[in-house]
């Protein structure tokens, strides 16, 4: 390409040379003829010239007949443009910088949207045909799916290329006597082939590895795990690795750059679905039970099949399954989601935040464009002479317009290149914005051709925005204006000053809007940080256990729990300790059950349900959840005793209308429980949730193999982990020991989405503020420099420095005020879009609006004070003479 271009240029310049020589010889011959007819040398020369006509025009007309004119024009424009920009390096640098921030912010957000929402799985083919697949309950609730249903979908669907089953599986990875938590998933055997992946080493799964209970202990490991844990051992295939205490044969290494199919994490291993039981938290075998729902998955549609068509087909199949297996499948359906709305990973959670980020960076871009447009306008008026001269010399107006646009394109092209570099740097930023976690986190932006194309589009859009107005203005330049010098007033706005001021007002209003947004989420995050979730976050640490893979049955697990609890309670510094199925704010969800209450008549067609937790005695005091009445569970509330429950405040209000429920009955899952206590309402899943009905049952009466240990202690978590490890080892050498995490951290982890939003809004909001400050500064400086005469006159007429200062600053503040009013109106109407991020903060919080106003005013003062000060330094004599 460049070679062809170079060649083209060379041919062209040769032809130019030839034409010149030909004309030269034409003239020489004509001159000789004239000499022969008896004229003098000089007469002959001028006669030949006269005869020939305008040489340049002949050359140009001839050159035009060669074609490729537009290209040479473009080259010329580019050359002139580059020269103009180099002549004004300060201007160019500032313009490119503003645009780089604007375009770069856009490119970064594009790349995040591409890499997190649209094409989140690198190396995976056909992501555009992939949908997330989940089960549904009548009434619209989402549920997982059973393996048998999944297989039926796969067998009966004609429109799907592949139906892929996947279930997240945490596992204990032991190397030597070291145990670590590893994250991976249990997948159907078609996983790697359906995703179109080629293994770095070894193979993917074979179809028969779908079948047989725990029959295929094989594992595919991630490239990263291979490199880090096995140091890239080339002979890794065939070696064994203990996962959840079961030796697995390593059969493959996934390709480099493949991180699995779960937005937010980088998976480390994959095992075939036949190994389900080994990786199940509860140790249950679920492959032959249509009622056991545990799978999430993906569907790859055949080419040309829309999501709607596929949805219809799969829903029809689900309906047939409902008819065939009424006892397990009544009321069950399936639902497809586009990847960016995937409900079971972080895509769904990050989606709205990224969309907000997108609108914010659009604002930033607009502000940057307004700045550059302003700068160009300033320069356009100083270039007026040049433009008029060129017009007078016969340049076409269209050509001039093209010239100005070309200069704009050079600016935004440079900025786009720099912006893409910026986006490249920022591609992993999202991960750093999130609170740290134990598992490898991955949320990377993707810079592919789509992002490039979109960035190029933004670049052109920006050019049109910022270059067109000055361009039109200069092409409107009149030749007669050439000698007329422009002078505009400092106070009165008219003509271009008016236009520039409008730009500043728009900038200020957009910045104000972003400031308000940032202020709101910041305030909300502060509220969240200091808010109480209804349980103690200080001095409580927690850790979790999985018993099933380590040869435990329920009886042994119960014994272990009792023994460990006794040992932990005896540790120095431990105030209290308890067991529960799960702790609040973790991804392990609580159980949910249909409930009934004596004397409560639910509305027709409604089945009240409530979430509940299984807890041991001492849970409430350890977690710091006050019991409002009644008593705590005791050791005697065991499997042989009367089933009991403790309900929360909201349940009392809802189902007993506030009457004392103690001694009353509550039915859960068809089993009657006696209410023995009332607990204070707290948050169970996250801060944003609405207050919900919740109850607790004794762990002993609902024993499970998954358990969390809570310890109330002043001992630092690190030290507690060591102490705890010693106690666990004393009881069982084989059981893996995980870190003890403070409850504060568990809670913080749930704030990922608001935190990302806060950071993005704050960063982009400050960016916008800086850009508008530059804009305001530029306009005020320009007004002062152009209004030198007027200011000089005013001084000569007796205005003193403070008067001028007041005048200039006043004008700056007036512009700001206009912008703030507009921005406040826009913010008033739009901040409720942030509602899902706001915790106990009104979208119209007056404090935030006030703070934004104060910040804006200060910034406006700072950016007008320097031009204003300069105005006072004007020498009236010189100003009037000039």
């Amino acid at each position: 390409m460049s070679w062809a271009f170079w060649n083209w240029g060379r041919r062209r310049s040769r032809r130019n040379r030839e034409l010149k020589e030909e004309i030269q010889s034409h003239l020489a011959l004509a001159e000789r003829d004239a000499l022969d007819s008896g004229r003098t040398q000089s007469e002959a020369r001028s006669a030949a010239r006269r005869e020939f006509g305008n040489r340049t025009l002949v050359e140009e007309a001839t050159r035009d007949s060669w074609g490729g004119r537009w290209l040479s024009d473009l080259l010329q424009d580019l050359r002139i443009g580059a020269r103009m920009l180099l002549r004004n390096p300060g201007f160019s640098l500032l313009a490119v910088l503003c645009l780089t921030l604007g375009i770069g912010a856009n490119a970064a957000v594009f790349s995040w949207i591409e890499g997190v929402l649209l094409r989140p799985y690198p190396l995976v083919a056909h992501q555009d045909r992939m949908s997330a697949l989940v089960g549904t309950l009548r009434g619209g609730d989402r549920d997982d799916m059973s393996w048998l249903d999944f297989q039926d979908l796969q067998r009966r669907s004609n429109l799907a290329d592949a139906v892929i089953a996947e279930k997240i599986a945490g596992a204990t990875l032991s190397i030597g006597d070291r145990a670590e938590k590893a994250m991976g998933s249990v997948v159907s055997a078609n996983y790697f082939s359906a995703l179109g992946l080629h293994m770095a080493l070894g193979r993917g799964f074979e179809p028969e590895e779908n079948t047989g209970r725990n029959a295929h202990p094989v594992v595919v490991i991630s490239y990263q795990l291979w490199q880090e844990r096995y140091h890239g051992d080339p002979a890794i295939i065939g070696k064994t690795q203990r996962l959840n205490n079961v030796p697995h044969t390593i059969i493959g290494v996934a390709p480099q750059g493949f991180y699995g199919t779960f937005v937010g994490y980088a998976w480390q291993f994959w095992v075939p679905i036949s190994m389900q039981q080994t990786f199940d938290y509860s140790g249950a075998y679920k492959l032959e039970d249509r009622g056991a729902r545990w799978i999430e998955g993906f569907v790859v549609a055949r080419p040309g099949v829309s999501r709607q068509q596929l949805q219809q087909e799969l829903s029809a199949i689900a309906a047939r399954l409902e008819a065939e297996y009424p006892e397990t499948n009544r009321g069950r359906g399936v639902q497809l989601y586009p990847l960016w709305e995937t409900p079971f990973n972080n895509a769904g959670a990050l989606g709205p935040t990224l969309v907000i980020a997108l609108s914010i960076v659009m604002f930033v871009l607009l502000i940057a464009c307004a700045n550059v447009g302003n700068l160009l306008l300033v320069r356009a008026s100083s270039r007026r002479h040049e433009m008029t001269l060129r017009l007078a010399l016969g340049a076409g107006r269209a050509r001039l317009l093209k010239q100005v646009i070309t200069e704009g394109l050079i600016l935004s092209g440079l900025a786009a290149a720099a912006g893409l570099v910026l986006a490249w740097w920022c591609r992993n930023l999202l991960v750093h914005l999130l609170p740290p976690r134990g598992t490898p986190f991955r949320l990377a932006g993707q810079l592919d051709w789509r992002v490039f194309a979109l960035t190029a589009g933004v670049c052109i859009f920006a050019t049109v925005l910022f270059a067109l107005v000055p361009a039109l203005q200069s092409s409107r330049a009149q030749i007669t204006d050439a000698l007329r010098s422009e002078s505009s007033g400092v106070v009165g706005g008219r003509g271009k000053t008016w236009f520039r001021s409008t730009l500043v007002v728009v900038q200020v209003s957009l910045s104000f809007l972003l400031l308000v947004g940032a202020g709101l989420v910041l305030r909300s995050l502060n509220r969240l940080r200091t808010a109480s979730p209804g349980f103690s976050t200080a001095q409580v640490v927690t850790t979790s256990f999985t018993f099933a893979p380590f040869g435990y049955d329920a009886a042994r697990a119960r014994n272990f729990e009792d023994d460990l609890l006794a040992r932990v309670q005896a540790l120095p510094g431990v105030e209290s300790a308890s067991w529960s199925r799960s702790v609040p704010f973790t991804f392990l969800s609580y159980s949910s059950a249909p409930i009934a209450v004596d004397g409560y008549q639910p509305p027709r067609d409604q089945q009240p349900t409530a979430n509940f937790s299984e807890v041991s005695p001492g849970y409430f005091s350890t977690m710091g959840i006050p019991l409002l009445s009644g008593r705590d569970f005791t050791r005697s509330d065991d499997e042989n005793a009367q089933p009991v429950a403790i309900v929360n405040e909201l349940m009392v209000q809802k189902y007993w209308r506030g009457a004392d429920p103690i001694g009353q009955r509550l039915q859960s899952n068809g089993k009657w429980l006696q209410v023995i206590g009332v607990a204070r309402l707290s948050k169970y899943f996250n801060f944003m949730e609405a207050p919900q009905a919740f109850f607790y049952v004794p762990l002993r009466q609902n024993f499970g193999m998954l358990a969390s240990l809570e310890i109330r202690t002043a001992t630092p978590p690190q030290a507690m982990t060591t102490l705890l490890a010693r106690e666990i080892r004393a009881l069982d050498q084989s059981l893996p020991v995980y870190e003890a995490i403070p409850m504060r951290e568990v809670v913080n982890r749930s704030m990922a989405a608001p935190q990302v939003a806060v950071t993005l809004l704050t960063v982009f909001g400050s960016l916008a503020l800086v850009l508008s400050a530059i804009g305001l500064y530029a306009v005020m400086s320009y007004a002062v420099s152009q209004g030198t005469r007027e200011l000089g006159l005013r001084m000569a007429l007796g205005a003193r420095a403070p008067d001028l200062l007041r005048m200039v600053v006043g004008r700056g503040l007036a512009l700001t005020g206009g912008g703030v009013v507009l921005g406040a109106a826009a913010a008033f109407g739009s901040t409720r879009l942030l509602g899902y991020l706001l915790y106990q903060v009104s979208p119209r919080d007056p404090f935030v609006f006030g703070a934004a106003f104060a910040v804006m005013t200060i910034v406006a003062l700072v950016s007008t004070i320097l031009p204003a000060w300069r105005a006072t330094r004007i020498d009236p004599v010189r100003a009037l003479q000039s």
Partner: protein
Amino acid sequence: MAARKSQYQDRIQILQGTLDMLILQTLQWAPRHGYALSKAIRTNSGEIIRVDTGSLYPALRRLERKGWIAAEWKASDQGPRVRVYRLTRIGRRQLIPQRSHWKHLTAAIAGILDPANARSAP
């Protein structure tokens, strides 16, 4: 500048077919350089047709690109190097249709100018 250039372009358009034919016709007998060509056309037309250089050189380039004529640098007996054009074989083949086209055109124009005469013509 722009206005004057477009004037030139207009003239080329009007004269294009004619000029091309004149050039081909003139080159038929001997290869010539640009200046000689314009002189020959002027002399042969009895000093009536003066080919404008702003039309001549673009026309030469155009014909060259079509492959109807070919150019070569030669030393002239009078001193400066000249670019000499000669008719190619394709160009020679163009002469016949060009001439008959011209005859039709002149007949047609004559018909417009003098309708009675044209109708009586065979």
